[in-house]
């Protein structure tokens, strides 16, 4: 087991090195993307700041809380895009048949596909988000327990995000309309810039349990602020683990389906 993990990690490093050299080849694009992402982030924070300053808070959240929600959103979405970048290029690999060659290699295809390309743009933006997380979080004066829950839920969010990637990748084996599913998800994801309860009970519930954005983003942030009931913490982990289990099962199903489909 340990040996297998070590081997996967080594391959992951090599793949990472390869995508780094790709990034370095497109330095101009790299810089532009980085600037664009930073610009979007700071402009949004600026807007939020002025909106909340004037209105004195939205749906019982203060300006600093709202900004923290926003920063957590960016942090988690950036982390998952950094690690699970592969889902954006996977469909192309299926269409071109490159996936067949991946499948015929002695390495877990799922591992290769989901973790296969590491996004260094997100890695470069990460320190800024960590700093933003620190500076907006310190205003909220969390307890040590709050921080522990926050970190644990953060890992849970990555598990959820991984499960989502597995779902998308599996779907790409069955249908070719996956690009749209990913893009629609990304649009929906932006709803979690704000705590999902501001959308009212109905939509809030859907966003929490169906598209689990609430569990992925709002819950960790709330735990940090010490306003998340412990039963929701437990629920989050149950949700995270079961979606991991189900998504892996779905991947196996999709692979079998792919294997019996026409070439």
């Amino acid at each position: 087991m340990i040996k297998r993990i070590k081997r996967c990690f080594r391959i992951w490093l090599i793949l990472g090195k390869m995508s780094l050299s790709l990034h370095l080849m497109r330095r101009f694009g790299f810089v532009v993307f980085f600037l664009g992402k930073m610009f979007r982030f700071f402009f949004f924070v600026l807007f939020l700041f002025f909106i909340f300053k004037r209105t004195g808070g939205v749906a019982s959240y203060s300006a600093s809380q709202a900004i923290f929600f926003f920063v957590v959103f960016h942090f988690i979405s950036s982390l998952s895009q950094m690690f699970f970048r592969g889902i954006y290029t996977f469909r192309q690999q299926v269409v071109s048949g490159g996936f067949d060659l991946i499948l015929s290699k002695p390495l877990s295809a799922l591992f290769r596909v989901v973790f296969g390309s590491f996004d260094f743009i997100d890695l470069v933006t990460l320190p800024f988000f960590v700093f933003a997380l620190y500076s907006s979080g310190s205003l909220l004066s969390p307890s040590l327990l709050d921080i522990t829950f926050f970190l644990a839920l953060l890992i849970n969010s990555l598990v959820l995000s991984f499960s989502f990637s597995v779902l998308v990748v599996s779907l790409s084996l069955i249908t070719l309309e996956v690009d749209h599913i990913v893009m629609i998800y990304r649009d929906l994801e932006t709803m979690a810039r704000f705590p999902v309860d501001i959308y009212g009970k109905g939509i809030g519930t859907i966003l929490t349990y169906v598209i689990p954005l609430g569990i992925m983003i709002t819950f960790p942030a709330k735990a940090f602020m010490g306003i998340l009931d412990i039963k929701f913490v437990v629920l989050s982990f149950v949700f995270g683990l079961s979606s991991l289990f189900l998504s892996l099962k779905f991947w196996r199903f999709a692979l079998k389906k792919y294997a019996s489909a026409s070439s």
Partner: protein
Amino acid sequence: MERVILIDKLVKEFVVNTKEPGFFAGIRSVFRPKKKRVLALDNISFSVDEGELVGFIGPNGAGKTTTLKILSGLLYPTSGLVQVLGFDPWEKNHKYLKNISLVMGQKNQLWWDLPAVETFELNRAIYEIPNRDYKRSLDELVSLLEVGGLLNVPVRRLSLGQRMRLELVASLLHRPRVLFLDEPTIGLDVLGQTKIREFLVDYNRRSGATMILTSHNMDDILNVVKRVIVINKGRLVFDGPFHLLVESFARKKVVKIYLSDSADIKKFEQYGKVVKVDFPEVVISVPRETVALTSAEILQNFPVADINIEEEPLEEVIKKVFKGGKVKDA
């Protein structure tokens, strides 16, 4: 000789969703797809011994690629026995996958924007090739395929032929015992094809690896393999030495005559079918058994400057193979 590949009564059925035109039909098909069964492989049996180099031919859609995909564990067989190196390919046991390689002429594993050597390094990690073996394989393959200067050039800047040779290097670094090649020369120019062909024959002899090669290209078959397996519409039509294939299907020979003087062309019809008349050249097709007699008579009765007896073009033979049923096993 050890049996490396064993296929017995293999059947592969695809379930295909039929698409109807129109938007609403498209929506409907999402919820209630119309399914159709397509028989891709119909009761195929053959076996391959260690070190053999087998040509696998047939028209488009005959099931060649399907067979290779089943052998490399990508497709799940509907029924029948498939065993390679004692493994069931579908289980994708890593021990098995480390001993095979799949090369597809139109699909690449090399990273497009990076030099090929980067992909080699990746494969080294994936196949866990020890350092010394890796170096030795790489040196050997590089010199055999003459790609020494190309390792550090981004793949996208290479010609198709160069790329294909590097694809071969990437696929052979781990010294697979069994090699599946799907149309490895497709799209290449004549020189590129020749290089790959020569390499394959040479590699087969040096390494003793078992190889199955599919191709459209008759020259590949003619120059590379001794044994051919022909399938058509999912059925095995012929399995045996190449010369037997020609003998059993090429019932006629082609006689080319160059006349030195004008003659009554009609008279040629008594010997066989007149294929082409383009004075001074006359081409007739003559049954194999009577060709000697016929040419002697022609030499006697016509003003002949030159006469040539040739085999039927291979494409013609193959066409007949596809038309006819199973002929005989060798």
